[in-house]
C-alpha cells in the first residue's frame, strides 16, 4: 500500500535530494494523516453501533441529539476553529498536527511537547521538514507517554488515586502554567527582542482588546501580529545594517 503512495522503493531513497525527499515526505504525511483520521471516525462508531443496534440498547435519537446540541453549544466553536488549526500547523507542522488532532489535548500536551522538542534541537531552516520531523517526534513521545498512562490508569483503576495525597493532586493543576512560562523563556533566550514584542502584544490583547475580540481568535491574532511586527522589525534592522555597511565601504 505504501508503494502506491511513494513509488520510489526504500533502496533509492538515499540517493534522493533534499527537495525530492521533502516532497515525498509531505505527500506521505498527508496521505497517512487523512487515512488515520478517517479510520478514527470509523472506529468511533463501533461501540455505538454494537450496543445501540446489535445489543438493542438504542436510547432513541431524541436524547442523543439533545446531548449533542448541548455539547455543540459549549464546544461547537472548536468544531470550526480554523485559526487554531492554522496556528498549530505553523507551530508544529502537518505530521504532528495530524497526530494532535487524533489524540486531542492539543494545547496542554501536544503543543508543549512539539515546541519543547523544537527548542531542544537545532532544526535547520524554519518551516522546513527537519523542524516538522523533530516536532512530530516530540508529539509521538508525548502520545505514547499519555496513552501509556491511561492504559495503566484503567487497568490499575481506582486503587491508584488513593496513593496520591490531596496536596500532590493540588500541585498537578499548576504544572501546566509553569510549563508554559518555562517554554516561553526557552524561546525568549533565542531572541529576546521578539519576546518583548510577543509580551507587549499579549498584554494589549488581554487588556484593551480583550472585550473587543472574541476569545477564540485572541491567541491566533497574538501569534499573527507578533510574527508581522517581528518580521517587520527584523527586516528594518537588516536594511539599516546593510546601509551602514555600504556606507562604510564607500568611505
Amino acid at each position: 500500500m505504501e508503494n502506491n503512495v511513494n513509488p520510489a522503493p526504500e533502496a533509492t531513497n538515499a540517493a534522493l535530494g533534499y527537495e525530492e525527499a521533502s516532497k515525498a515526505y509531505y505527500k506521505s504525511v498527508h496521505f497517512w494523516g487523512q487515512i488515520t483520521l478517517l479510520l478514527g471516525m470509523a472506529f468511533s462508531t463501533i461501540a455505538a453501533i454494537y450496543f445501540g443496534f446489535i445489543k438493542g440498547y438504542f436510547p432513541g435519537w431524541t436524547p442523543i441529539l439533545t446531548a449533542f446540541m448541548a455539547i455543540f453549544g459549549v464546544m461547537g466553536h472548536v468544531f470550526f476553529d480554523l485559526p487554531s488549526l492554522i496556528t498549530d500547523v505553523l507551530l508544529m507542522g502537518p505530521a504532528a498536527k495530524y497526530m494532535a488532532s487524533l489524540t486531542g489535548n492539543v494545547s496542554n500536551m501536544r503543543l508543549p511537547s512539539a515546541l519543547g522538542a523544537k527548542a531542544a534541537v537545532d532544526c535547520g531552516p524554519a518551516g522546513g521538514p527537519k523542524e516538522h520531523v523533530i516536532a512530530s517526534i516530540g508529539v509521538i513521545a508525548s502520545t505514547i507517554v499519555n496513552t501509556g498512562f491511561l492504559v495503566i490508569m484503567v487497568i490499575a483503576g481506582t486503587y491508584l488515586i488513593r496513593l496520591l495525597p490531596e496536596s500532590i493532586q493540588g500541585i498537578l493543576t499548576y504544572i501546566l502554567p509553569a510549563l508554559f512560562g518555562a517554554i516561553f523563556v526557552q524561546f525568549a533566550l533565542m531572541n529576546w527582542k521578539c519576546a518583548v514584542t510577543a509580551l507587549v502584544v499579549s498584554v494589549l490583547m488581554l487588556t484593551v482588546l480583550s472585550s473587543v475580540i472574541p476569545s477564540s481568535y485572541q491567541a491566533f491574532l497574538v501569534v499573527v501580529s507578533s510574527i508581522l511586527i517581528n518580521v517587520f522589525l527584523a527586516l528594518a534592522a537588516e536594511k539599516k545594517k546593510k546601509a551602514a555597511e555600504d556606507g562604510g565601504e564607500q568611505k
Partner: protein
Amino acid sequence: MLEETMKIANSLEMWLCCAPLVLLVFVQAWIFWRLGMKYKTEFRISSADVSSSMRAGIISTLGPALSIFVVGLGLITSIGGPLTLSRLSVVGNSMYESFSAQFAAQAAGTALGAPDFSPQAFTACIFAMNLGGIAMLVLPLIFIRPVSMATTKAAQRGNSLVLRVLGISAALGSFGYTSLNYFGGSKNTLFTELQPKYIVSVLLGATSMACFTILAKKKNIKWLREWALAFAILIGAIATVFVG
C-alpha cells in the same frame, strides 16, 4: 440497574469495541515515526537530535498526563474503563469528555452514577461522546493539507532571516499569551481577578528556566540543559504550595 449498566460498561464486548481506537493512536504514531526516520539522512537528523527531541516530548507531557490521570479516575467510576480509555486517548480533552458524558446522561433523563443510570443512558453516552469526537475530526481532515501546503510554499520562498524570526515569534506569541492569560485564571483578562497561585507558577517556571539555561550554557553543563525544563516545571508547581 446501575450495577447492570456498569457490568455492560466494563464487559469484554465493550473492551473489544473500544480497542481499535486506542490501537489506532499507537499505529498512527508508529506510521509517522517510520516516515520521519525514512528521510533522516536527507533532512540531516542525527540520532542525538532524535533522542533529545524525544526526551523533551516526554518531559513536557509527564505533568499534564498525570493530571488527566486524575480526571480519568473520576470518569472510570461513572462510565467504565473501556469507554474512558478510548475517549481520553482520542480527540478533545478530559474536561470535554466529562461534560459530554454528563450531558448525555441528563438527556436520557438520568445522571452519571445515578441508581437509574440504564444501559440505554450508557449507550446515549457512547453515541454523544463519539459523535462529538467525529465532529472535531472533520476540520483537520479537510484543512491540514491545504494550510500546510501554503505554509511550506511560503517557507521555501521567503528569506532565512524572516523564517527564523517567524518560527520564534509564533512560539513566543502563542506561549506568551497563554502564560499571561493564566494570571487572571484563563478568562481572557489581565490584572483583574488575579490568581496568585497561577502567577507564581508561571513566573517561577519562567525565571528558574532562565537561570538553569544560562547557568548550563555558561558552565557548559550538558545534563542541566536537558533537565532544565523538568526542574523549572517542578519548582514552579511545587512553589504554589506556599502561596495562600
